[in-house]
């Protein structure tokens, strides 16, 4: 279908754009310039690597008898490099603790609201 082709082109363009940005940052850091073809080559490689990652993630989730890919699957995908898997582990812990904080805030807010409701009732009773 033409839609799929157009969508692929759009995704490739998006990857190329961000890849270019990251490469420019590193170029500035290292004092070297990248040729346009190099950035295009890195973007294309990233695009294809993402396909490999996606199929791996799907296989891991299926192996765990799940339909939804979660952080554990991503940690497995990073297993080949120790540095990378440590980094992924740290990030996943950050995300998990951020979720925990959000839950705590919500609980505190509901408790606050309940207190306010009951206080309002007692005041009315006193009147």
């Amino acid at each position, binding site marked *: 279908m033409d839609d*799929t082709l157009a969508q692929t082109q759009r995704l490739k363009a998006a*990857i190329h754009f961000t890849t270019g940005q990251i490469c420019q940052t590193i170029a500035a850091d290292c004092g070297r310039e*990248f*040729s346009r073809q*190099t950035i295009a080559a890195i973007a294309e490689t990233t695009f294809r690597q993402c396909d490999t990652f996606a199929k791996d993630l799907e296989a891991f989730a299926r192996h765990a008898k799940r339909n939804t*890919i979660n952080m554990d699957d*991503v940690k497995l995908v990073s297993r080949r490099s120790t540095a*990378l898997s440590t980094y992924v582990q740290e990030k996943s812990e950050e995300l998990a603790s951020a979720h925990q904080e959000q839950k705590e805030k919500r609980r505190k807010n509901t408790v606050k609201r309940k207190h306010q409701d009951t206080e309002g009732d007692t005041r009315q009773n006193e009147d």
Partner: protein
Amino acid sequence: MADQVEYEFKKETISKLLTKSFTDNKTKVSGDAVILMCEILKVFVEEASRRAVKQATTEDGEQVDVEHFEKVLPQLLLDF
């Protein structure tokens, strides 16, 4: 001191890209997994760039050319 702007892949882009490659219609990705994948892909691009720069430096090239990237590509893919 310039503030380093951190460029990242957009969650929406990566989510769509991953979903396109799935072989099963039922497969989905959790939001957190997408965030982590964005990080991994960013590291991939950074690693590819830095290795290419190193290769260019070793060969005393002015610019980082495709040839430099091609030489570091096999090891890069094996390491990931």
